[in-house]
C-alpha cells in the first residue's frame, strides 16, 4: 500500500520528517536528494530512533587520528546510542558477541539485511560498511521504499498478513504528519 507522506520540497537535504502512516511512526530522511524511510522505533529497545541525531562516518587507526566523512548517514538512537545506517537500516559497530537479543525484521528490505547478517560476512570485507573496520550489528531498523512521484514523496508499506490488519491499514488511509 502506498502513502503520500510529504511534498518533496518539504524535506531539505539533511532533513527529515516524521509521519504516521498505517498506524506506524516513520521517519523520512533526505540524504543529498535521495529519500529513505525508517520505522521510528529502535529494534534494540523501542526508542524513538528517527528523533536521533545524524552523524558523519568517523574511523581511526590510532589515538588522535580521525578520518571523517561528513555524510551524516549514521542515525544514533537517542536512548542508547545504537548506530544505524539510514540507507539500509542496518546497525553498525557492535559485534555479534555483545550477545544482545536479535530482532526479527518484518519488511522485505529488512529481511534481506537480516539474511546478510546471518551469513556472517567478515566485517573487514563488508562492502556495505559505512567505514572500513566497522562491524555489522545485530539489529536492522525497519526500512520502507520511498519514491518521488512528481512533487510528492510516497512511502510504500507492505500489506500485513492477516485480513484484519489489512483493513486497519487501509482505514488509516492518508498520512498525517506528526512533526
Amino acid at each position, binding site marked *: 500500500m502506498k502513502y503520500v507522506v510529504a511534498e518533496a520540497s518539504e524535506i531539505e537535504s539533511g532533513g527529515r520528517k516524521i509521519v504516521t502512516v498505517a498506524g506506524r511512526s516513520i521517519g523520512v530522511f533526505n540524504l543529498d536528494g535521495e529519500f529513505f524511510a525508517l520505522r521510528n522505533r529502535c529494534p534494540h529497545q523501542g526508542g524513538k530512533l528517527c528523533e536521533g541525531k545524524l552523524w558523519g562516518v568517523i574511523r581511526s*587507526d*590510532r589515538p*588522535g587520528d580521525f578520518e571523517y566523512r561528513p555524510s551524516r548517514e549514521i542515525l544514533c538512537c537517542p536512548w542508547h546510542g*545504537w548506530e544505524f545506517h539510514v540507507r539500509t537500516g542496518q546497525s553498525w559497530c557492535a559485534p555479534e558477541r555483545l550477545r544482545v537479543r536479535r530482532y526479527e525484521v518484518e519488511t522485505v528490505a529488512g529481511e534481506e539485511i537480516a539474511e546478510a547478517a546471518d551469513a556472517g560476512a567478515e566485517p573487514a570485507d563488508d562492502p556495505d560498511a559505512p567505514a572500513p573496520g566497522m*562491524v555489522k550489528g545485530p539489529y536492522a531498523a525497519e526500512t520502507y521504499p520511498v519514491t518521488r512521484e512528481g512533487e510528492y514523496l510516497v512511502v510504500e508499506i507492505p500489506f500485513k498478513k492477516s485480513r484484519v490488519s489489512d483493513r486497519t491499514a487501509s482505514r488509516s488511509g492518508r498520512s498525517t504528519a506528526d512533526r
Partner: protein
Amino acid sequence: MIDADVHIPNPRLKDLFPLLPGHWVEHFDNTMDKGASQEYYPPRSPVAGRRGGLTELREAVFEQGGAEVAISSCLYAIDSIHNPDVAAALATATNDWQAMEWLERERRLRGSVVVPIGLPAAAAEEVERCADRPGFVQVLIPVRTEHPLGSRHYHPLWKTIEESGLVAAIHFGGAPVTPPTPTGWPSFFLEEYTAMAQVFATQLTSMIVEGVFDACPGLRVVFLESGFTWISAHLWRMDKEWRNLRRLVPWVRRPPSDYFREHVRVGIQPLDAPPEPAQLCEIVDQLGSDDLLLYASDYPHVHACDAGDLLLRLLPESLRRKIRSENARSFYRLSEGGQP
C-alpha cells in the same frame, strides 16, 4: 609450574653504592637523602613478608613451591623519589643489582626492570638499556601513577616497551603525588588497600579508551596483586558505555572487553574470595576466557587466603593446568623448560 609474582627484597642503599656514580654515593653519605622508602606495607606486618636472600627464595619458590620459573620483581619505590636525577640513577643501579645479585645467580628467576615512572622519557631509556640483558622479562610499573596510564604522556613509553619485547607488569602500590582513591586522601591503610582495585580498574579503562593498545598492538600487560573478581563487572560497564560514547574515541573499534582479553593477564594472588568459595568458579567463568589468569604466590608476602590452594582446587584440571603454567608460558613466550 610458573610463578608469575615473587619478590626479591629491596636493595639496601649501600648495596647500590658500587653501582652508582661517585657523586651520588657522596650525596647519600653526606645528606639526609637515604633513597626510596623501603616498604609499601607496615614493617614486620605479615603482609610485608620476611627479608630473605637468594637461598631462602630458592628453597621456598623452587624447591618447596615447585616452580620451574619464577618471575620476580623488586618493589624498591623508585617512584617515591621526586628528584628526577636521583630517581633515574637509583633505577639504573637497582636494575644492575638485580641482574648481578639475583638473575645471573639463579637462572630460573626472571626479573622486572624498575623505572622512574614519573619521568616517562627516562623510564623509556632505562627500558632500552635493560631490554636485552638476560633475565629481564618485564617492566615494573606501580599501578598508582601521577597521570592515568593511558594518557598521551605515557604513549612513547608504551611504544618502547612494546618494541623491547618486554611485558608491562602493573603492580599494586605506588607513591605518586596523587591520592590513592578516586575521591581523595583516605585516613587508613584499610581504605588505601581496598581502593587499589579501583585504581587498577581506572588504569585499565584509561589504557583501553585512550588507545594504548591501538597505538601499540603488540603490547602485553600483566596485572599483579590486582585481584580479579572485580574485572568482569567493570568490563560489562565499559562495554556498555562504549556503545554510547565510542564516537569520541573511534580508534576503540572493538568492545573494551576484547582488548582486555587480548592484551592483559592477571596474577591470582592475593585473592578476594567470596565467603562461599565455590562461587569463585562462576567468577572465573564470567571472565570469558581461560587464558587470563596466572599462578602467583606473591612470595614472600603472606596473605590471609592462599589463592593457589583455594582457587586451583575448585577448577577443572584443564583450566588448572593453564593457570599453573600454560598461560604464563605462552604470554611470556617461555619455551618448555622455561628458557625464553
